[in-house]
């Protein structure tokens, strides 16, 4: 057996040096309200990644080729990591080890307007404005508010609410919540929205493809259906209300196992069986170039033209 290294058998160092080592091992912790002031050059269409745990993240686009971060570090956080790379800028709130009490950190981030943006938080609200690049915004329990331009927007939350304001430009918008409500207004192009118990309110421009699904949340949708457009809406026990604006040219396939079906277009739903529940409604409006499918187990369905 090899003898232990001599250094390991040395007597303990002086109390002063031990204290120094301990101090070095424990990272400094921010005091309440420690100001943040970071700035660095950025590619005008590069990526910006922001990560915070609790508090707020406010991101806005500007016409400079740089990223600026201001705000306040919450008490108990260690520091703000700010890395300005060629193509990617990273902003991250660092927590100290084994900390159990971390106060909110508020981040105000300015990015080149065409940046691609990714924000991840646990309970920090996310608010985005004036960012034209693709956005990927995720939070466990906080609310998300953003503006959609012509690039893809993906918002995901467990219990936070999601609000998206579009400009009518075509984009792919994806919203996923578990219990949070979702609102998307003036969004066009393609919409994928999925919730378990959140209520969804969608005011859509001309959409080519929309797929909306809930287990128990109510779905209220107003939309203009594009030529050859597709609408696919499903709910188990949530009610579904679809208002179609403008000219309508589509085949309709509507059915509910236990819910009522009300239709402003004229044709009435019929029972699918003499002895079992279930109603369906199939009809064509115009040439039938588009497809509208509405399906529920228990939820009522209202289909109307405005």
């Amino acid at each position: 057996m090899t003898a232990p290294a001599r250094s390991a058998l040395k007597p303990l160092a002086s109390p002063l040096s031990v204290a120094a080592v301990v101090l070095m091992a424990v990272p400094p912790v921010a005091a309440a309200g420690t100001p943040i002031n970071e700035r660095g050059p950025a590619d005008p269409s590069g990526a910006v990644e922001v990560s915070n745990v609790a508090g707020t993240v406010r991101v806005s686009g500007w016409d400079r080729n740089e990223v600026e971060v201001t705000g306040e570090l919450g008490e108990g956080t260690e520091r703000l990591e700010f890395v300005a790379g060629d193509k990617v800028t990273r902003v991250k709130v660092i927590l100290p080890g084994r900390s159990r009490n971390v106060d909110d950190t508020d981040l105000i981030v300015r990015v080149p307007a065409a940046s691609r943006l990714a924000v991840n938080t646990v309970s920090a609200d996310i608010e985005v404005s004036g960012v034209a690049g693709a956005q990927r915004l995720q939070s466990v329990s906080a609310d998300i508010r953003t503006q959609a331009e012509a690039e893809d927007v993906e918002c995901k939350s467990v219990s936070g609410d999601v609000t998206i304001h579009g400009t009518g430009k075509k984009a792919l918008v994806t919203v996923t919540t578990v219990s949070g409500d979702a609102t998307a207004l003036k969004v066009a192009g393609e919409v994928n929205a999925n919730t378990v118990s959140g209520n969804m309110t969608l005011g859509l421009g001309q959409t080519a493809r929309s797929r909306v699904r809930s287990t128990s949340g109510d779905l209220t949708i107003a939309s203009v259906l594009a030529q050859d457009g597709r609408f696919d809406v499903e709910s188990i026990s949530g009610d579904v209300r679809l208002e179609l604006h403008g000219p309508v040219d589509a085949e309709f396939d509507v059915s509910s196992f236990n819910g009522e079906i009300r239709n402003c277009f004229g044709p009435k739903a019929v029972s699918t069986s003499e002895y079992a529940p279930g109603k369906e409604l199939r009809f064509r409006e115009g040439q039938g170039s588009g497809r509208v499918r509405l399906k529920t187990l228990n939820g009522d369905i209202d289909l109307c033209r405005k």
Partner: protein
Amino acid sequence: MTRPVDDRRIDAALGTLAREVEPPRDLWPGIAARLEASPGPSRRSWAWQAVAALVLVAVSSLVTATLVRRSPTPVAQQPVPASASAAMPVAFGPSFALNGEYAAARAQLAAELERRVATMPPSARQKLEANLAEMRRAADEINAALARQPGDPLLQELLLSTYQQELGVLASVNQLTGTSAAEEARQENVKL
């Protein structure tokens, strides 16, 4: 009231007929054999297509969850408490069970969720568990309806998408809680 004479004649004639008429031979074996040999699409083939689709979704969800997972701990060895991962019934109507690859992938996603769920903010955790239970109730209800009306296409479609949605929720929450902010909070045991 006196019944017309024609009615009485008809009744008398009917009374002379045999109460039961036996078929000349047992027809059922022939019918059953032809049903078995039928090449057309059947409920069974539809259900297996649905199962195949779910397996695909499950495996892709699992791959996504695995990619965002940072812990080297093998998930399959984690104990799976009953709360968040309580199994959704993996029946598909009265005649089919979704097991094998689907069940394995789903169990792994649920185990991963169980590992992460403790670090979620309490209110979000409660809502998540309530919503997973909501999806299980929905699947139970549709399965019960399918038992009464086997082969109902609406019920089959809704059940399939309910299973898909559950997988989607499991994968999404795993991914959300595996992001850098959440992972940091988890590693540091931050109480939110």
